[in-house]
């Protein structure tokens, strides 16, 4: 019986089932995430695996992040310039652009780009390992699968996300400079003066806190979806991995936007 039919026939039971299943899933996710985080620090440290993951999640994302940041900065430069001109305050372009990037767009768009590039691949990789019994094999060899597979990914994300966010912010500001100063003729000195005076340390810190929280959410949600692929009620095998990847991307994006709102309201 599908969810729609059952919700019509037995609404209370359906709501109850959904609540129980969601609570179970939340609990499982919380335990899984905590274990993944905690086992980063268990001895012996897995430096080489963390470095490999930093290369995959961080280094290989540099070009795409830089490209996206450049064009985001340029588009914002154009849009803000024409909007501010109407009020005769185009000199504030540097402030508006830098604050938007450092506080909001940098962490959020960096996270979304990494979800698309590395998060989906994380889920698919772990999911395939699960359905082909490779994770069970680790278990039987007395190798902790969470420590071996998940912890390096979380650690690498926690290191890579803030660095990539910083890159995004810098390239975005350069993009705004190209559009506002080089193309539209705004004074170069005013642009950088406004950037320098308006961006405070707490804005940068806030952006980094956001990127660290997003890193944790993205890496744990994507890993969790892959790790429990075999327990999905809606698909098994290759189909299950496909669905897990879709869920991972959607849930990661939604959760970072929700977390962004919560963090912004706390940090402001």
């Amino acid at each position, binding site marked *: 019986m599908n969810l729609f039919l059952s919700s019509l026939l037995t609404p209370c039971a359906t709501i109850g089932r959904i609540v129980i299943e969601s609570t179970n899933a939340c609990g499982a996710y919380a335990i899984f995430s905590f274990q993944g985080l905690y086992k980063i620090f268990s001895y*012996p440290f897995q430096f080489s695996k963390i470095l490999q993951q930093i290369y995959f999640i961080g280094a290989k994302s540099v070009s795409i992040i830089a490209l996206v940041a450049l064009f985001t900065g340029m588009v914002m430069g154009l849009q803000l310039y024409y909007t501010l001109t109407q009020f005769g305050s185009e000199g504030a372009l540097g402030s508006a652009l830098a604050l938007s990037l450092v506080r909001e767009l940098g962490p959020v768009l960096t996270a979304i780009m990494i979800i698309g590039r590395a998060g989906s691949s994380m889920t698919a*990789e772990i999911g395939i*390992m699960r359905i*082909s*019994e*490779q994770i*069970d*094999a680790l*278990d*039987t*060899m*007395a*190798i902790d699968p969470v420590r*071996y597979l998940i912890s390096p990914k979380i650690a690498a994300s926690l290191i890579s996300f803030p660095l990539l966010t910083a890159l995004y912010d810098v390239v975005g500001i350069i993009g705004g400079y190209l559009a506002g100063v080089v193309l539209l003729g705004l004074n170069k000195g005013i642009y950088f003066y406004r950037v320098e005076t308006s961006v405070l340390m707490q804005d940068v810190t806030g952006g980094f806190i956001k990127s660290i929280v997003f890193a944790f959410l993205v890496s744990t949600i994507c890993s969790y979806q892959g790790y429990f692929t075999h327990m999905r009620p809606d698909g098994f095998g290759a189909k299950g991995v496909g669905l897990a990847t879709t869920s991972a991307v959607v849930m990661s994006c939604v959760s970072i936007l929700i977390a962004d709102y919560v963090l912004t309201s706390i940090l402001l």
Partner: protein
Amino acid sequence: MPKPLVQFKNVTKRFGNRTILDGINLTIYEGEITTIIGKSGVGKSVFLKHIIGLLSPDEGEILFMGQRFADMNRKQQQMLKNKCSYMFQHNALFDSLTVFENIALPLRERTRLPSSEIKAQVMDKIEQLELMEVPYKYPTQLSGGMQKRVALARALINNPKIVLFDEPTTGLDPIRKNAVLTMIAHYQQQFNFSAVLVSHDIPDVFYISDRIAIIDDAKILFQGTPTELEQIDQPVINQFIHSLDLLKEDLTGLTNRHTLEQAFTKAQMSQQVSGPFSLISLTILGLAAITSHIGAIAAHHVLENFAHAWQGAISSQTIIARYDELTAVALVPAAEVRQVEGMLQALSNMSQTAQHFTIPGYGGDDITATLLAGAVPVRASDSLEQHVADARNQQTPLTTIICSGPRPGSIS
């Protein structure tokens, strides 16, 4: 006498309301190959998971070398896990790692050995398992047999005391199946580990096993040596042992012994209503010689011919079943006795001229076999075995069968 390595004492395991293992008592001995046989879903894998400590029993206890698993502290349990290896049905090799990395993984993750020492140990295993040509290939680039050897190498790299094989031959063709079983037996002797196999390959697996256990309906139905298993006479156990024969029976168009036993009991009970039954035993004396000299296919060819002849002479009311390797038994309702007598008469008439079977490709001496038949009326009191024994005593030669290679004028 080998020492007990793992002992299950009254082990019970339930998942919800379903009892998977019900008071299991079983001992696995050191240095032996123990095979667990059972239908799908009876709890064989659950049993294996108890051995490596992935599951713990709801009731009862498991002893490792005399020590209770539940009494061990975490470190001891971990040390015990390190002594066990598990080989998955589909190998579960890490497809993104090379053969070398796959085999080295347990050492890299669980020991503090320097990389030179790890390399030496891995290359040693690679050499012993004849994988010298493939250490830097990926598992998907290897044949099925090689993948099995890589999985075995990975399982043996930390010199385990006990290796668990979960259906190692399922889905393989007969040649590869034998190769895998031979490999297990060969390396078990070479590395002297204790092996626990879950398998359905009856009777092939008997040849390499020191001990057999049959799990059925959450209980241990039998445990003992393969010879003891072959000598035991219980319908359910016989059904397992004769599973290969069941296939032959299907091929010859005869029903199996289990069905015959049921029909015989029914016939005994219904005789007063539906009239008397007769039991006829038909034996091909010398069928074993045909099998050993010419081959199983030739013996099957002979049986198939007679099965068709017998079935042509009777109606569907009569049951003809394979009783043992040499004997077929027919259970005939009274109404058909005349027809069967006619068939026996017809076969008897042929006894003057021997039945020739031409076996294509056979170039050796002629092999002679004799068809014997005997009939007794079914009595309400005695067992099937007694009836068959009586019918055998009544047997007289009906015809001679001569199997030979192709020659002009012979019939096939």
